[in-house]
């Protein structure tokens, strides 16, 4: 199995991936791929990143046995706690790596898109730490529902640019970020937040998130039966899966029912890669609709499309109300308030446990991609 392991030639994962970008961006993508390839093979770069992950970002994050839920559900549930990473989600793993790379490439500015704001906060954080400028594009709808993260970004010194076009969510913020990159490609690094986009992003981001899976694999001691994570663009799941790709563990990605590119999409080209996309009969990209801003996205990273196509990973969907209930259930059973995004994985486990989908006695590693502070207002709104 070469997928999840090596650099994909020409950025291809089977039929998916590639680099569908304006010619203006091709040299930058090439330079980025080369720089990452070289840095990733450079022990000094790896050491600097690893040090930051440990002394700054709080890695390794624990693998917490969810004892109460396990007893209730008749399975053994282990939670990989990305909610405890600095800034509150797995996004920091990728961001620190790319920000170090940007500095190594002599870039003075980071451009990022964000949905839930976690990637934007992580980017603003790394920019502050490394003395870079940061501009974060965020859909107006997401700005409304993730106010806390907007305040955090501006406190960190980043510029947050509201995006009012289209669905005013992550998809549109990504368009705007790519436009901004084209206009400042010499000085700026486009710090993409997930495993989508043109080559080298899907590969690079998965490599930078691999640490989740590697740690979880080590911490879980024996190979679990199932590894599960939520899927927006697919970075926390890709990083998690990477640690278990060469094991017998089932890999399960959980999508938002309203943004389920794997389940309800078809092949298409958006944001620089060929992958699975929610689109209409004409090929216009559909607007996703999820309570979780970070999963409110009509695409998915190309490697997931490939893993799904070859049957190595399976993808399921959960609905908004299951997700809200999963946040509460996890909070009340284990004292952990997870992000609405992460709660998708929890919701699937709650539904599947004890059914043939997830038989009693299964050992499950679940990546809790982030903490839920940012979602408290949404939860309250939904509850009242």
């Amino acid at each position, binding site marked *: 199995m070469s997928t999840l392991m090596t650099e994909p030639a020409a950025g291809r994962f089977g039929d998916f991936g590639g680099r*569908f*970008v*304006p*010619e203006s961006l091709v040299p930058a993508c090439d330079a980025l791929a080369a720089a990452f390839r070289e840095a990733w093979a450079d022990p000094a770069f790896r050491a600097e990143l690893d040090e930051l992950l440990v002394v700054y970002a709080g890695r390794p994050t624990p693998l917490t046995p969810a004892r109460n839920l396990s007893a209730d559900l008749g399975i053994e549930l282990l939670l990989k706690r990305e909610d405890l990473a600095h800034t509150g989600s797995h996004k920091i793993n990728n961001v620190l790596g790319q920000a170090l790379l940007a500095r190594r490439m002599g870039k003075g500015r980071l451009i990022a898109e964000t949905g839930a704001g976690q990637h934007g906060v992580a980017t603003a954080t790394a920019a502050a730490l490394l003395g870079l400028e940061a501009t974060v594009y965020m859909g107006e709808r997401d700005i409304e529902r993730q106010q806390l993260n907007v305040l955090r970004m501006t406190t960190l010194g980043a510029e947050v640019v509201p995006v009012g*076009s*289209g669905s005013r969510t992550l998809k549109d913020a990504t368009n705007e970020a790519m436009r901004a990159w084209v206009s400042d*490609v*010499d000085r700026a690094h486009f710090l993409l937040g997930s495993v989508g986009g043109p080559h080298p992003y899907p590969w690079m981001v998965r490599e930078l998130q691999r640490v989740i899976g590697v740690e979880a694999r080590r911490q879980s001691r024996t190979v679990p039966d199932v590894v599960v994570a939520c899927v927006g663009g697919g970075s926390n799941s890709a990083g998690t899966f990477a640690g278990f790709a060469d094991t017998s563990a089932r890999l399960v990605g959980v999508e938002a029912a309203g943004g389920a590119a794997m389940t309800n999409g078809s092949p298409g*080209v958006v944001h620089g890669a060929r992958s699975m996309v929610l689109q209409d009969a*004409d090929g216009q990209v559909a607007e996703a609709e999820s309570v979780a801003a970070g999963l409110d996205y009509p695409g998915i990273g190309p490697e997931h499309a490939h893993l799904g196509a070859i049957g190595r990973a399976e993808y399921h969907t959960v609905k908004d109300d299951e997700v809200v209930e999963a946040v509460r259930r996890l909070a009340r059973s284990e004292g952990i308030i997870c992000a609405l995004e992460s709660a998708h994985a929890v919701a699937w486990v709650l539904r599947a446990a004890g059914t043939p989908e997830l038989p009693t006695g299964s050992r499950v590693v679940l990546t809790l991609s982030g903490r839920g502070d940012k979602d408290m207002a949404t939860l309250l709104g939904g509850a009242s």
Partner: protein
Amino acid sequence: MTALVPYVTGGISADWTDYLLAYQEAGATAIEIGLPFSDPMLDGVTIQQASDRALSRGATVVSILQDLDRVRGRLRVPLIVMTYANLVFHRTPEGFCRELADAGISGLIVPDLPVDEAKPVARAAAEAGIDLIPLVAPVTPDDRLEQIAALGSGYIYAVSVMGTTGERATLGSSAAGLAARVKAVTDRPVLIGFGVSSPEQAAEAGRAGDGVVVASALMRRVLDGATPAEIRETVAGFAAALEVSADYAYAEVSGDRR
């Protein structure tokens, strides 16, 4: 001597095909028709708004190509379609190019389809008898220019600035240099586009290349409600600055096969 290629977003209004006639009357050498896409990654605000308006009017690839029936008899200038890769791949490159050809389109520009990804589309375009017009950018290195020059047929589209489409106060200084670099590696004519906002800028671009594309400067006025007759005057101003005459340009334009 220089081609003038004004742009219109297909389906932007009920009478959008009247803009085609107006452009032709005003001296257009060829006309670029945008097939609107939901996520126009390389477009600035004006073309985004134009695309949104067309899409919210219900415009589709099929409806736009059908609309052309209304003016086919009166159009003498070649039509070039510009759209994003997803619309091409969604209908398959073969299917898409055939549809274009059936609708009398003679060229295709896909801004998010770099040479590395273009092979299937280039093949389908050639089979359908359509020019795939590749794009080059100021940052494209010379060796890559050569590769690109070997792709497709007809014009090469030189993106004059590093940025999205949209009006700009001055023409990108890189335009002339880029055009010269393209000409050093190929005999194919060079169209200059992105940000050509005034007749003066068009004249400047015209001295560097073989033609100019004018898009946002026209679509801004269309969005603001300019009628085909009003837009004709605007285009005529560009034509005058470029010293093109409709007849002359028409004879020159690549891909003209009617």
